[in-house]
């Protein structure tokens, strides 16, 4: 015990001074991470905590005593004894100028919230810094590719600010490397290989790029169908019904209508990730064609609605007939990947005990 205490005393905590306040930090932490823990609300546009810090937007600059120029706090590691100021007049002025510059290259900073999870970031900062000045007028950057033939992702690069979050999320989180950046300087443009449509690329339509885009340049086309639908957007936390991973999602609804899905950045299983199904394939929920009752194909060859009791008896009789006629290995069970553990267990029990066969599998294995 005594030696433990001694060890604690000698392992001196790392300390830096943050706006005059001494705060502790862990080795490897960046200034930004330390400052965020202490609620400094440093503005950022190219930052996504799930991605490697990139250092593009320069909004996160802070003053560090002894260093002539401000440093980007997202890429600069905290160091013992550092004296950091996060919000001097000079820093705030640079931030405002940066935001005015960024606003000047886009067609609009006001985009529909349904565009994506992070789509309001630019708008919020422009308002916070009162940067709606119309200064720095000039050429707009980015060429929109709104004709990209896909039902999921709007590619409206007129509103792109070249933060490369989309490129980085696609590479770092998805491992798809579907998109990248073409050209240099003011002519940079987010593209797939050879500037083709997404469907001709490695894109899996996971929508991660849409959800990290801070300007709505990448937009959720399915959600945006309901731009004009009446009502406030409501978010309801739930679990994606598709597979056993159990990704947390926020269902977006207006009134009684489900209009879209956004990944939950704090979902323990997915940490903001989703696949094409969880992200975009939600229409079935309120689809008119959705089956709401079991059906049996009767003598006339047509499907007829019935009650569950009857449907189950009918199915059981059918299975028994097959088994009696062709033997125990004539039945093969595949449990749904959407089924939770308990259901999958019951399914294999059912197949093994009822039919006496080991022909049981799960669709996630396919």
């Amino acid at each position, binding site marked *: 015990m005594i030696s433990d205490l001694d060890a604690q005393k000698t392992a001196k905590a790392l300390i830096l001074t943050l706006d005059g306040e001494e705060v502790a930090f862990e080795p490897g932490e960046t200034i930004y991470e330390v400052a965020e823990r202490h609620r400094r609300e440093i503005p950022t546009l190219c930052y996504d905590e799930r991605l490697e810090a990139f250092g593009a937007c320069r909004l996160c600059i802070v003053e560090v005593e002894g260093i002539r120029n*401000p440093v980007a706090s997202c890429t600069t590691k905290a160091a013992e004894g550092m004296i950091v100021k996060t919000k001097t007049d000079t820093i705030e002025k640079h931030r405002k100028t940066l935001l005015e510059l960024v606003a000047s290259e886009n067609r609009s900073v006001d985009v529909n919230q349904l565009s994506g999870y992070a789509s309001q970031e630019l708008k919020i900062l422009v308002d916070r810094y009162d940067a709606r000045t119309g200064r720095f007028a000039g050429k707009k950057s980015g060429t929109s590719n709104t004709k990209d033939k896909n039902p999921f992702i709007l590619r409206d690069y007129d509103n792109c600010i070249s933060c490369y979050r989309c490129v980085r999320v696609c590479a770092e989180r998805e491992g798809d490397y579907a998109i990248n950046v073409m050209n*240099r300087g003011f002519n940079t443009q987010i593209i797939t290989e050879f500037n083709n449509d997404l469907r001709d690329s490695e894109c899996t339509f996971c929508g991660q790029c849409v959800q990290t885009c801070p300007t709505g340049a990448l937009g959720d086309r399915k959600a945006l169908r309901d731009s004009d639908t009446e009502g406030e957007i409501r978010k309801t936390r739930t679990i994606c019904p598709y597979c056993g991973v159990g990704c947390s999602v926020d269902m977006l609804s207006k009134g009684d209508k489900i209009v879209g899905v956004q990944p939950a950045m704090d979902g323990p299983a997915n940490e903001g990730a989703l696949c094409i199904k969880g992200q975009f394939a939600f229409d079935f929920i309120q689809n008119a064609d959705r089956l709401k009752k079991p059906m049996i194909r009767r003598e006339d060859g047509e499907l007829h609605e019935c009650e569950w009791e009857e449907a189950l008896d009918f199915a059981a009789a059918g299975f028994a007939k097959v088994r009696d006629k062709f033997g125990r290995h004539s039945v093969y069970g595949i449990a749904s990947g959407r089924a939770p553990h308990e259901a999958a267990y019951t399914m294999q029990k059912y197949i093994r005990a009822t039919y006496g066969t080991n022909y049981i599998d799960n669709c996630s294995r396919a």
Partner: protein
Amino acid sequence: MPRQSNDELITRWKDEPAPLLPLLHAFHNRDGWISEESIRAVSKGLKIPLAELFGTVTFYHHFSREKPGKSAPRVCTGNVCCLHGGNELLESLKSEGATAMPCAGRCDDMIPVIIDDKAFVGLTKETLVHRATPMPVPNPGGVTECVFSKIREEGRATLEGYRSSGGYRGLEKALAATPQDVIDAVSESKLAGRGGAGFPTGVKWKAVADAPGDPKCIVCNADEGEPGCFKDRTLMDHDPFAVIEGMTLAAFATGAPLGFIYLRYEYPETEAILENAIKDARANGLLGENILGSGLTFDLYVRRGAGAYICGEEGSLLNSLEGKHPFPRNKPPFPVTHGFNDKPTAVNNVETLASVPHIIANGAAWYRDLGLGENAGTKVISLSGDVQRPGNYEIPIGLPLQTLLNDWAGGPLPGRSFQAVTMAGLSGGFLGGENLNITLDDPCIKSKGSFLGAGGIMVFDDSRNMVDAAHDAMEFYAHESCGKCFPCRIGTQRMTERLNGSTPKLTKEEWLAEMNDIGSTMKSTSACGLGMAAPHVTESLMRYFPEQIEAHLNGEA
């Protein structure tokens, strides 16, 4: 030679160090352009995701992605060549598919035009000639030189001529001593980086020597992209073994077995000269294993860039070598600990490296004392523009600018007077008026808000419109901004627009306020030296030539 297949090209390069650039050049050379099919083949061969590779290829402006491609003339429309009619020459070659290129590093000559792998010069389409890089004239001040001291000797560019004029004496001396002795000598000489930033070379080498990680690496930065700089070309063309010996000394001092020369695209003849010199050095036991029987191993590869000023910035250069998208890297960590393939790496300029053999051979004190007054050593100045005798001059640091301009280079053109000069190529902006009386050393130049940098000085006489000059400079930065960080990507564009009057009409107050705000934010917040330096141009324009700005805003010519 029959057309080589994709597979043959890939097999040739894929296991070489830093294979992407040479492989892309191999396709570019074979077909004259880089096709979709070639990009697919390289992507597969080197296992680089297709979209990433496509983005990287588009980053370099000299890689053609359509016919006629490589054989179409590229005409220099850099600041100095504009003074000589670069735009008119470009116009006259348009029918042959000509495109503009930024300063091609030959501002002391006529306008360079690159066609395939030949750099021609001329003032009109009919009179283009292919000739060697100009040799520096004998030192007009009669002062002792370092890097140019032997360059004019007969046969210096051959191994035999190099050795007979004192070459490899430095390496022999070093091999008889210790790596630490070399580092000490370089430190004591006060040699500082000649590529722009002026970092003490001895300190850099010591850091690499001390850093953990193998294999360490020496990179010679021969990208020479700074407009108005053409000294590295002269050194490599006329004294290539000095660069190789300098790199070998760096390798010995730091313990690096591997080296690269990163050469800009615009110097095709230089590539051949370096490759031949490396071959000769290797054949004579001066590169490779057991150099001069000492047990030292050092091997060296030339890698040719493809048109991107930013690839002279060391982080961007290293990414380019590694086959990545050439954005600059966030610092720290610095290349001395995390350089090529994240191993300790010394990135040094050509002139820095070429100085070292002389310093080791003649001693640290000898070099240090070459400077005037408190200043140590010498610097090559690339002088160009409106002056009688443009060219490369090796000056003792501390020389008055007026001495260089008038006594060494013959003064202004007949009937003209000097209006302004640039410093550090373009990166130091303009000096004018009283401040043309500076001495050429950083303490003095920095006190005027500029710096000596890589030593390019362009001269503008009283016939020139300085707003136009500033516009051409800012257009260069906008063209070369890598696009990674916001202040530079957008700022260089907005400044260019404000210098060519393509924006909605602004009052003088608005114009000045916008330019000041953009400039100050770029200087303070840009992620690399390009964006930090670019506002020197506009700041100095506002300081020295307010009346020309006024005329520009009033729409006067």
